[in-house]
């Protein structure tokens, strides 16, 4: 009797401590969840605050006089004369008229740097479209230089504006432009239509987006049929033997091989051995195919496994051959699951960077690619390249590119989830 009493006393005495431990344990659990979610929130806020500026770009209004003497262009229809015309000259002159008290070579050069290099092309385009403008004046909005852009955007910052490479004189000019309303932020269309550039204000993601598109196209065209066929074989036809075991072990291991190893494979086999051209989406797609195949095969097998045996048995029962069972009954029923797996595999491939660095997709490519055999870069690699650039303006470009990339990934994953919900059958 005393023993029993002692035990219950012991238990009662320990209870408070045990409940405390229980609470602690639960608290650590909540803490880890909160930590993960917090990381996600911090990451997103950081990127959005850094990158939202890039969707707007600073423009400066200048009054251009298409003066034939400065342009050294008397007949705008003469192609050769047009190509040699001094468009920089009219911009320089326009800026000097705006700021007449700027003297000295260095200051004048500084003044010219208010506007982007692109301004000359804008002026040239205007004149090309309307040759009648020669000798007349008009006011144009042109892109500001990236330093001005960064400075102007940070004017209202709490810690004061980011001056960077701008001098006090330039800041004064910007202030003058602000006072006169000749500088403003506009939607940054250039960012979405241009290729890469060394000038941050001219750098856009269109080239990288197209490169990603072509690369993913190759990946999808190769990996989906091969993955589905492999899964179909392994689930429906493969005899239980050494070869099948070997294939399974290989697939499972490949799924966990670091992606950079696939880059080495691409470099040694495709480039060095097969002499394929570097930097092209075709090659990138091949490497990414090998990388995503295990993912697609594994998810396709899961989808095939989920098809109930009764379907197969019914088909066999009415005399279908194994191939007919597989192609006419199992494959269509497993298709939603396979598609979902493939979209997730494609999303992985879209975000992959490391193997593409190995096969030369890091080259600085200005032109947007127009086929799978044009040199190209892809969105994640573009992000990597920009994040390495010293110009401050590239930080917001990089963040904006990340937002675009994440946008694509979210669309793909939502599509996968939607597809699964929409097409999935419960047996």
């Amino acid at each position, binding site marked *: 009797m005393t023993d029993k009493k002692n035990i219950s006393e012991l238990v009662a005495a320990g209870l408070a401590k045990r409940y405390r431990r*229980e609470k602690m344990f639960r608290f650590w659990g909540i803490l880890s969840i909160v930590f993960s979610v917090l990381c996600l929130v911090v990451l997103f806020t950081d990127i959005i605050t850094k990158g939202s500026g890039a969707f707007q770009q600073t423009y400066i209004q200048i009054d251009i006089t298409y003066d034939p003497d400065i342009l050294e262009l008397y007949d705008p229809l003469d192609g050769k004369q047009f190509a040699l015309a001094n468009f920089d000259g009219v911009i320089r002159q326009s800026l000097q008229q705006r700021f007449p008290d700027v003297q000295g070579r260095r200051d004048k050069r500084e003044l010219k740097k208010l506007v982007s290099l692109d301004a000359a092309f804008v002026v040239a385009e205007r004149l090309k479209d309307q040759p009648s403008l020669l000798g007349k004046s008009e006011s144009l909005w042109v892109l500001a230089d990236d330093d001005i852009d960064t400075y102007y955007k940070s004017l209202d910052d709490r810690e004061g504006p980011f001056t960077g490479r701008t001098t006090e004189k330039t800041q004064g000019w910007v202030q003058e432009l602000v006072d006169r309303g000749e500088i403003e932020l506009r939607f940054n269309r250039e960012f979405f239509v241009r290729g890469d550039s060394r000038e941050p204000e001219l750098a856009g993601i269109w080239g990288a987006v197209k490169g990603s598109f072509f690369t993913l196209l190759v990946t999808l065209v190769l990996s989906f049929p091969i993955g589905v066929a492999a899964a179909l074989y392994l689930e429906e036809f493969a005899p239980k033997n050494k070869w099948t075991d070997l294939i399974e072990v290989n697939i499972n291991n490949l799924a966990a091989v670091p992606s950079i*190893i696939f880059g080495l494979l691409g470099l040694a086999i495709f480039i060095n051995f097969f002499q394929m051209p570097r930097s092209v989406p075709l090659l990138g797609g091949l490497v990414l195919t090998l990388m995503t195949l295990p993912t697609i095969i594994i998810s396709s097998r899961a989808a095939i496994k989920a098809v109930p045996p009764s379907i197969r048995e019914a088909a066999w029962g009415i005399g279908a051959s194994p191939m007919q069972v597989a192609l006419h009954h199992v494959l269509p029923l497993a298709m939603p699951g396979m598609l979902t797996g493939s979209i997730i595999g494609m999303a992985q491939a879209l975000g992959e960077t490391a193997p593409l660095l190995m096969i030369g997709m890091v080259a600085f490519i200005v032109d947007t690619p127009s086929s799978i055999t044009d040199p190209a870069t892809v969105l994640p690699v573009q992000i990597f390249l920009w994040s390495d650039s010293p110009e401050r303006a590239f930080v917001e470009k*990089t963040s904006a590119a990340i937002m675009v990339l994440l946008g694509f990934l979210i669309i793909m994953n939502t599509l996968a989830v939607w597809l699964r919900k929409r097409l999935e059958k419960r047996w």
Partner: protein
Amino acid sequence: MQATNLLILILVMAAIAYLIGRGRALSVAQPLGGIRHLHSLPYYYGMRAAIWCFIPSISLLILWVTLDENVITALLLADIPAEIKPATESDQNLLFNQLENIISGAISVERVTPAIAAAAERLEGLRQTGYWLMLAVICSAGALGGIWGWLKISPRLRARQQVEKVFVAFLIICASVAILTTVGIVFSVIFESVRFFNKVPVADFAFGLEWSPQTAIRSDQVGSSGAFGAVPLFVGTMMVSAIAMLVAVPVGLMSAIYLTEYAKPRVRALAKPMLEILAGIPTVVYGFFAALTVAPYLRDLGANIGLQVSSESALAAGLVMGVMIIPFVSSLADDVITAVPRAMYDGSLALGATQSETIIRVVFPAALPGIVGGVLLAVSRAVGETMIVVMAAGLAAKLTANPLDSLTTVTVQIVTLLVGDQEFDSPKTLAAFALGLMLFLVTLCLNVIALRVVKKYREQYD
């Protein structure tokens, strides 16, 4: 583009073969009294004809695509005038670049010597001839195959079996791609590694304490002999992975435990997708975050409390990598914890244990093999992770145990050695493959052990 045209042509021919094959099967069946007197369904005859048309022509096309440049180069070099005959391989590349430019019109013909202009013309001519020749060969191969398939059609022909055999063969080939990939990986890293180890002894590589792969171009320059001691890289990789694991394992495990055992369905439905989003973020984004946000933050924090934190510290890379791996650990742990039979859990609760005691003393030991397997897989992820360390860790190989210092890892070195120009005869480029071999072996071992452990565990409760 020519190859694409030919591919389209082949597909069109195959489609035609299918149609006429099917048509003939139908017309053969008509006098017999309908298609039930055929051995197979009509479309199998069509497919058989299409396969007869497709396989020979596509094989020829692949052969042509892989060989034609080599053959044309050999033909051109065979009768090129002696004065422009290239002596070395790089000369040859130069010459061909020039010829390409002439053909594409980037260099005008007047600006080069007549011999080169003639060579360019001949190159273009050879290509044209090759293309037309190939067109003719592929067309006739496809046509012959198609006609053969068409001729053989008879009511007795076992078309379905034959077509299915081809399909199964295709499936087997697709399934074998995985094996080919592994073989490709092994060959690509082993061949170059062997060449590397011929120049640098294995012992120097595996036990050397100094890593400076930048070999000078001329032998009289400073630092002309690179040092290839990989120990600092291994230490760096282990350091970053260890930091990552210190973050990922506890947080991932506790998240999984909380979500499976404690969380209300509403919380679970909200938190799980959050973790999945964390898993779906590309590594380059994490790298950017580590390099531009976490690293400067840690540096300022260190400066405030009087610590010297490098702006490329291992800590920043490791922390962010840990965050990246949290969802990986938590989803694997989730799987194994839910696989523990409910009866064990309920039994422990019935004996008066609290929930946490049950989890720590009953569920956790039962799930341990699976968790160990998951952690090993996570370690292999951390070791092979590239972009975060490339962007946030340093380049200088330092042998240090200080996580606040900058250090470099195996993957960073592979990337820096291989991005840009590669020479496959310098130890600098080959070293990357030796590092790749190490990386592959280590991750392979980890994966094999992990999969073993997980598999063994699973058999216990099924």
